[in-house]
């Protein structure tokens, strides 16, 4: 007896070291796995901020522009639509670098400045026509290549043929820098312009407005319908095949790939109902179908968390079933429903695959002004810019992503705050 006990003890002790080693290996694996996710997150945000933060600033060049009447209004009459403001910019550049001569060299010189410079002068004159004939000093946006050079994204030490900016241009930029005529300033165009082929003119306002209109449609449809469906399923639906079917259906819809909703939108809303393509209205309809399951599931959970005693008390005081629900259960469940809705909306804001199906990927310069104007959405703008070969667009893509993530962060924080503030322990 003693022998066998001693024996089993020995067996256990012999295995202990191996078992402890296994234990620590297992533990370390778990730690590494957790670290992988967190590290990726850190790397991801670091790259994003490193790439994108520079896009919020843009290089500007100081020019002394002679608003000469002979260029702007050769016939004595100023017509803003046809006046040659670009010519003014060009002559200002020639004045700044009098040593540059020859057609091709001058053309290279003109490319230092963005085509936005002419528009800027035109806007100034249209605001204050008395500027004509005077000399003004303005900061005009530099072209995207100069911008990239100044931000260090183009390496001037590599061979001239491998970079989009010539040696002469690099020299001019350096001399502008020395003269204090080159400065990085806040990139307002990013927030006030629609899309553009020129990186220095491209902005996200159009996409932001498109996303905004879409979310308005989505909230207006998905919130009431989702809440109503949740109320019916939780409070009124008899336990029948039909309600089981609806329930299974909702759970499945929540897991259907979003691109399939895009196919639905294309076939039903655009082909069958003949609604306009690329419109925030259609995008909002598709996104509301997409977020509906999320909202229904969250709202049902919120209704379930209202204790039955409240229903019974109201019923006992003579309220009808409908009054119980709308006067007592719904107000108590509303914070949970709102949280679910905000989370659904943040999912809708980040969604882009179904929008590709319904034509919201078009290149649209104008900022949409309504629900049926052609528009694009913020995540789709990210997709479009990510496809552009210019280096300057990569930077702006990161900036657009930062803005998008900022909005998502705000929405999720709002959801957390609502949950925390309105949370009730029964």
């Amino acid at each position: 007896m003693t022998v066998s006990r001693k024996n089993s003890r020995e067996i256990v002790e012999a295995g202990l070291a191996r078992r402890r080693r296994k234990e620590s290996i297992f533990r370390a694996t778990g730690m590494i796995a957790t670290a992988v996710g967190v590290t990726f997150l850190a790397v991801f945000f670091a790259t994003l901020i490193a790439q994108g933060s520079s896009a919020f600033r843009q290089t500007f060049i100081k020019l002394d522009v002679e608003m000469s009447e002979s260029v702007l209004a050769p016939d004595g009459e100023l017509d803003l639509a046809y006046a040659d403001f670009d010519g003014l910019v060009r002559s200002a550049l020639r004045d700044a670098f009098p040593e540059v001569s020859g057609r091709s060299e001058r053309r290279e010189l003109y490319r230092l400045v963005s085509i936005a410079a002419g528009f800027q002068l035109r806007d100034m004159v249209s605001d204050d026509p008395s500027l004509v004939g005077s000399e003004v000093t303005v900061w005009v946006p530099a072209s995207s290549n100069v911008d990239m050079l100044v931000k260090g994204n183009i390496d001037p030490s590599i061979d001239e043929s491998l970079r989009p900016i010539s040696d002469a241009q690099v020299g001019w930029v350096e001399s502008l820098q020395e003269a204090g005529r080159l400065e990085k300033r806040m990139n307002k165009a990013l927030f006030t312009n629609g899309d553009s082929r020129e990186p220095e003119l491209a902005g996200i306002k159009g996409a932001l407005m498109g996303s905004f209109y879409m979310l308005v449609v989505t909230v207006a449809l998905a919130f009431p319908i989702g809440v109503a469906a949740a109320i019916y399923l939780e409070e009124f639906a008899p336990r029948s095949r039909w309600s089981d079917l609806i329930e299974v259906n909702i759970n499945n819809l929540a897991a259907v790939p979003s691109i399939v909703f895009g196919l639905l939108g294309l076939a039903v809303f655009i082909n069958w109902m003949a609604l306009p393509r690329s419109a925030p209205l259609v995008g909002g309809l598709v996104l509301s179908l997409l977020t509906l399951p999320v909202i229904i599931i969250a709202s049902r959970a919120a209704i379930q968390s209202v204790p039955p005693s409240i229903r019974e008390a109201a019923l006992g005081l003579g309220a009808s079933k409908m009054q119980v629900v709308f006067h007592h259960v719904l107000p108590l469940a509303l914070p949970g429903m709102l949280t679910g809705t905000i989370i659904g909306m943040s999912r809708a804001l980040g969604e882009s695959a179904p929008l590709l199906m319904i034509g919201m990927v078009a290149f649209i310069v104008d900022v949409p002004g309504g629900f049926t104007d052609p528009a694009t959405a913020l995540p789709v703008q990210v997709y479009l810019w990510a496809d552009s070969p210019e280096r300057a667009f990569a930077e702006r893509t990161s900036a657009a992503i930062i803005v998008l993530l900022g909005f998502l962060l705000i929405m999720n924080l709002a959801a957390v705050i609502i949950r925390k503030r309105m949370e009730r322990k029964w």
Partner: protein
Amino acid sequence: MQNLTLILLLAAMAGGAFYLGRRRSYAVVGGPAHGAQLHSLPGYYGYFTLIWCLLPALGLFLLWVLLEPKVIVALIIKSLPEAQRAMSAGELNLLVNNIQNLAAGDAISGEVDALMRDAAERYNEYVSASRRMLATLTLGIAGLGGAIALRRIRPEFRARNRVEQVVLYLLIAASSIAILTTLGIVLSVLFEAIRFFREVPLTEFLFGLTWSPQTAIRADQVGSSGSFGAVPLFAGTLLITAIAMIVAVPVGLMTAIYLAEYSSSRVRATAKPLLEILAGIPTVVYGFFAALTVAPWVRTAGESVGLEVASESALAAGLVMGIMIIPLVSSLSDDAIHAVPTAMRDGALGLGSTRSETMIRVILPAALPGIVGGILLAVSRAIGETMIVVMAAGLSANLTANPFEAVTTVTVQIVTLLVGDQEFDSAKTLAAFALGLVLFVVTLCLNVIGLTFVRKYREQYE
């Protein structure tokens, strides 16, 4: 804008109806002092009137707005001379489009003749006539409905029951939208897919080995192979999904185990929300990251060990997709692990097993159905994921199992086929719907099985 005015007018009328109905209910019993003689609270008489005023008018309005364009186009076509009506559907369509553009004052293609100008004028007449009729009819019906409801108000009238009945119907309608959505998905995808299978046999689509959807417009066109064998797409999807699962399952599962069993509560409180952030990042952002950061990195890493890596390798897309799915796997595994009764865990520990032995020998086997269900849901998510592969995976349909080569997936092809011009009479566009059908059926099966596993398993220990 006109519609908006009409809606606002209707809303104002509805508000008025509510007010009138409420006032009338007091009036029929002789003032607020006698309110107790009413069957329902006065507000319910107001709501009753509002419903009668609003619902029929709103129904008519929606129906009208939906049908108006079709009816007007039909009327215009009917009014065209015989020669135009005999044109083919495509030409007729173009003509109608031109007429519409001309009517709206937009630029049109081709030259404008008297016929078109007439038609455009007629078009505008029809539109404004339709607008006038719509406004009069809806407002008239709203007024009529309100008046009928007002006349029915009596002290013994059971307004609350009526209103609650209508509200119940509205609730039922709202909850059946989920069913309608599924039905809509199935019908729209199926309908177009059947049209596709009329041109391309089902067996060729499912078992063909070449995918090259460029159909010819002319018969002698160069490069118009138009073969629709989807096997390379399925293989590509599976390859990327497999890479993603190889990343996501071990990492997600081990994360869930570590956070549930080993980590201090402080680590858990920080790591969990951080991982949830991963789940909240839009997929287009992952796609951007995969295409611009991970893919070049994979390429350089591969080249440094002498491997030939395509710049749009399946590996890059799969890796990033795997990272995206980690939170899903870990949260579902976490649920499954937590659902195992503590008695089982405590029993194993009490018998002297280490924590890892408890986990591997006791908890994981018990939680396995839940974990498998979660993994199935994750696979379905990976198969249906679009933006990452659109941005980081290739377009050419290679039939290969080499993760360093570029492959294409079902979702990528749906996007490429449908972005841009669509002709709903060509197999090229319809192929997207056939692929959509496959995608929907496969993910649906995975979801149903996965959800049943997860739910069955949860009930087991409850």
